[in-house]
């Protein structure tokens, strides 16, 4: 009896849906979360328990707008005051389930709607389900009085939607004043799309409305492809002492349900039709979730890309500044001239006496050595450049995220600026790099002709020359003109540069040092960008979230066609007896 494969496929889909997460604040996310929760609820509340027992009693959920008279109708149908009607809106807050005592075992077991606590006493807690046994009701059929679908109480609406999703048959109750309301029609359309079997009651029709309103409602049903649904009309009347509608008004409706209850085939057909419709509706819904999940992943990618682009722009600025020799201007160049012009450079290269004399000069005149000055000029230029670049990149990334709905939600003001300790880290980076360059010269320069063996001072001088070479880039040998315009220079300084750049060894060293500097800058910027990436990581977006959802949905669809629930039992609702209408 129970179709093979389908429960397993549904369980897989359920797992996939509950695993799907929509953490980024996209417009589709809130809806997807809601849909996902509703699907999981429907699977737990209805599909899985119903599949387990196809022969369980038919559950009729009485739903509709607030004030439509649902409770009064249920009371009248079972000929007992089981649900309290009232004039205050909304009236019913906790659902009431009425069934024949013979069927109550199944409903009490709690397979169906497992989230609701069973109780036998009237309750106002929306998480309970009050079970009432009504001997007057034919076995095989149960009525569930649901809360309204459109009142101000949010909980009611959610609960009503949950209960409607668990209905084998939805008895939709509306009134002459309400039948054109927008909210219930939205639900009706959803139910039709899902294949739920629907019956309608037009309640509280005043005398003057006559046949006009039912006729109009029938037109509207036709227009909405719901002409198949049986429509019952109840006039606006006073209730009797028991709070029940007069017998003659409800007789037709009761008779119809009696016939449905006693016809096992018809009941089974209703169950299978609704079940099949509900399972069939899962697949498109899951696809929708998959699309929303893919959108999340795409948004996360887009956000990452924006950050990456911003910081890549920063790295490119640094690279360009090195390439076009822009860093070799101003301060650095004049210090270089001093360094070369004072003869420090050559002395440094050639002898140690120079060092001693320079120390003495420095001590006497109080002036720092030109070599050190050059070094610190390089340091301050690079540090400023790095700070500026990191600042621009942070700002660009921030604006990029701000323009993205999901990004704006992840931002915090501090991201717009570089990390507070960036100046320190930039300083350290530059000093580390300079040390690295000296190290490089020491290692590789041992046999080069202008590096006097093991002379630390010579290493320093060569190191500085290498740094200058890095600043001027290896692809570009500064001409006399280029340097001359910067600020008057001495011929010697030019010659030295030309000699340096002409030297293959220095160029190779410079290329290495340059790469080293760029790598360090990349690391620094990557650290900065990581603050952004961390925020995406923190909310957690899967790489391929839609895949499993789609696969599970496809499997459900395959299992559904294999199960062929509706084949062989055609839906044939009992015909209503016409003529008794007023």
């Amino acid at each position, binding site marked *: 009896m129970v179709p093979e494969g389908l429960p397993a496929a549904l369980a897989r889909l359920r797992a996939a849906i509950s695993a799907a997460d929509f953490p980024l604040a996209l417009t589709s996310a809130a809806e997807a979360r809601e849909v996902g929760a509703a699907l999981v609820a429907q699977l737990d509340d209805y599909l899985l328990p119903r599949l387990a027992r196809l022969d369980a009693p038919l559950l009729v959920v009485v739903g509709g707008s607030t004030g439509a008279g649902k409770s009064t109708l249920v009371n009248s149908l079972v000929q007992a005051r089981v649900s309290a009607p009232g004039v205050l809106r909304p009236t019913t807050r906790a659902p009431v389930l009425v069934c024949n005592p013979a069927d109550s075992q199944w409903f009490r077991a709690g397979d169906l709607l497992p989230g609701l606590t069973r109780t036998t006493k009237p309750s106002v807690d929306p998480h309970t389900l009050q079970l009432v046994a009504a001997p007057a009701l034919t076995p095989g059929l149960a009525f569930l009085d649901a809360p309204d679908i459109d009142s101000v109480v949010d909980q009611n609406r959610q609960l009503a939607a949950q209960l409607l999703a668990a209905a084998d048959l939805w008895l939709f109750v509306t009134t002459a004043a309400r039948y054109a309301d927008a909210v219930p029609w939205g639900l009706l359309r959803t139910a039709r799309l899902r294949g739920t079997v629907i019956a309608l009651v037009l309640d509280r029709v005043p005398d003057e409305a006559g046949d*006009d309103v039912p006729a109009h409602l029938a037109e509207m049903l036709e227009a909405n492809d719901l002409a198949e649904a049986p429509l019952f009309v109840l006039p606006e009347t006073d209730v009797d002492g028991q709070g029940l509608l007069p017998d003659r008004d409800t007789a037709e409706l009761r008779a119809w349900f009696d016939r449905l209850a006693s016809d096992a085939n018809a009941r089974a057909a209703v169950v299978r039709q609704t079940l099949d419709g509900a399972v069939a509706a899962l697949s498109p819904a899951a696809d929708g979730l998959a699309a929303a999940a893919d959108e999340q992943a795409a948004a996360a990618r887009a956000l990452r890309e924006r950050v990456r682009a911003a910081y890549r722009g920063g790295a490119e600025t640094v690279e360009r500044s090195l390439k076009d020799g822009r860093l070799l201007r101003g301060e650095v160049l004049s210090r270089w001239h001093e360094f070369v012009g004072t003869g420090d450079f050559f002395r440094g290269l050639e002898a140690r006496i120079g060092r001693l004399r320079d120390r003495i000069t420095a001590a006497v005149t109080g002036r720092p050595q030109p070599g050190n000055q050059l070094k610190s000029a390089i340091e301050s230029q690079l540090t400023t450049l790095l700070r500026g670049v990191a600042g621009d990149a942070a700002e660009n990334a921030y604006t990029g995220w701000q323009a993205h709905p999901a990004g704006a939600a992840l931002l915090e003001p501090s991201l717009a600026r570089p990390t507070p300790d960036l100046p320190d880290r930039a300083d350290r980076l530059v000093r580390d790099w300079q040390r690295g360059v000296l190290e490089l010269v020491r290692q590789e320069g041992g046999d080069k002709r202008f590096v006097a063996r093991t002379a630390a001072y010579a290493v320093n001088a060569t190191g500085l020359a290498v740094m200058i070479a890095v600043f001027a880039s290896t692809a570009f040998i500064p001409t006399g003109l280029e340097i001359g315009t910067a600020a008057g220079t001495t011929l010697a300084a030019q010659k030295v540069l030309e000699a340096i750049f002409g030297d293959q060894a220095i160029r190779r060293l410079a290329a290495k040092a340059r790469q080293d500097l760029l790598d360090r800058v990349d690391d620094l910027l990557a650290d900065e960008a990581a603050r952004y990436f961390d925020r995406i990581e923190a909310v957690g977006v899967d790489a391929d979230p839609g895949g499993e959802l789609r696969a599970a949905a496809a499997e459900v669809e395959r299992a559904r066609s294999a199960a062929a629930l509706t084949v062989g039992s055609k839906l044939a609702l009992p015909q209503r007896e016409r003529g008794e209408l007023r």
Partner: protein
Amino acid sequence: MTQFMGRVREALRGNRRVDPDVLIGRLDAVRSFLDAADGHLPSERLVPAHTLVERAGGRLALSRDHTLVALAGATGSGKSSLFNALAHMHLSPVGVRRPTTGQAFACVWGAADAAGGLLDWVGVLPRNRFARESPLDGDDEAPLRGLVLLDLPDFDSVEAAHRVEVDRLLGLVDLIVWVVDPQKYGDRVVHEAYLREFHRHKDVTVVVLNQADRLSTTDLPKVLGDLRRLLEEDGLGGVPVVATAAVQDAAMVELRRLLERTVAERQAALRRLSGDVDSALARLDDLVGGPAPSDVDKATSRALADALAGVAGVPAVADATERAYRHRAGAATGWPLVKFWRKLRPDPLRRLHLHTPTVVDTGLAPADGDAPVPATTSLPDPSAAQRASLGIALRTVTDKTAGELPEPWRVAVGDAARSRLGDLPDALDKAVAGTELGVERKRAWWRAVGLLQWLLTLVAVAGLGWLVAGYIVRALGLPRFDYPMVGEVPLPTLGLLGGLAAGILLALLVKPFIRWGARRARRRAEARMRESVAEVGRDQVIAPVRAVLRDYTTARDAYAAAGPPG
């Protein structure tokens, strides 16, 4: 209890008369807020306030003797029945089919022409307008004269177009009578989409529970109590709640009284607009924060000037100035015999195309009265680090001045600081080129030393000449003449050697002075250039920022002025 509450409410409401002048003042304040904020803030944030100003202007220009009252409600609540019952005429079609009314109907008590402009403004079709004034009534309807009653379409039916029309009309009317019925009074759409939106319009809101005749006398107070509770949750606690039944004249009396009172007060339009101003201000709330600093602080301007000086190449020019001073001073005071060497070297300032235009007093004012435009300099392009430091300085300006402002204003300040970034290099170049560096003029002491050098050289040459003359005389065997002796040394020799030695000594002696003077010239030039560059910063960066800050302050003051009186 209810009566007591009612009296308290009356007392409170009575006090809240809206003075038209105060209202107009508040509207003007909103307008000046918008004037100040336009162009700085995202325009979509200002749309509601713009709409308000426009709408209020429209309403106040039209008849204030009329009161526009709208009947609004869900489909089937009996708006049209109520409308007809109030008018004592069958004007609006009442139907059992839902939804019924798709267009607004209007009924004017008093001369219909007088309210024509108002109804045109509201947009009620002429064929849907009715006048309620007939001699048959006598004075029965007189208390309602001035009432313009609108019957709106529903807002909860499947017809979405109805809802659009209702939303439009609800924005325009003076007083809204919300019509609910025992079936629908708890509907979500009524409360969440409509009543809650009007919680700032308490004093122009009336809620009517229609079809009260369908409830028993014991149920009616319960339902009314529940309705009041829901209204309280909507933020509408204290609004009048009236039970009516369109089919019974007696049940209409209370609503009629209420309308008569409203019409007589002629306050509804003002109260409505006043509520609108409150709503609009509430939406502008996060655009206003603490006070803005009146100006950019000193340290920040100095940092900006530093960065700009770097970009403008001030240190390079200052360097060149120092060297130019030394060059020129050397040329003027050097030992004349080796001075020509210097002439072979180029003047450092000339190399930058930066020799300041010599001020020549021709006695003729320039034709256009402007200073001559300095030529573009050949200063090197700013280094990458200098550009970066300018970026940092601009960001600091934004952070320091706008740090406490609301986010949209902070963005506006940032944009303003950067607004003339494109013009900056040119302006800086001009500023540097136009600055008098103070090394053109020859110093008096250079001349004096120069003269002395010449004198000394002259002495040396004279000494040499004398010696040579003596030598020639001796060589030719002519009677030699005696050199005057100074001590043991002949005077010409003393003149020659002394002149040469003194010249060299003098050149050496003035060297420290030249160096000192060059450093001074450098400092002075640097200070002057920094002043020019700072001026550029004030013009191109600080002035736009200051303009935004000023606008913010104006907007902030206007916001405070537009706030509810008292």
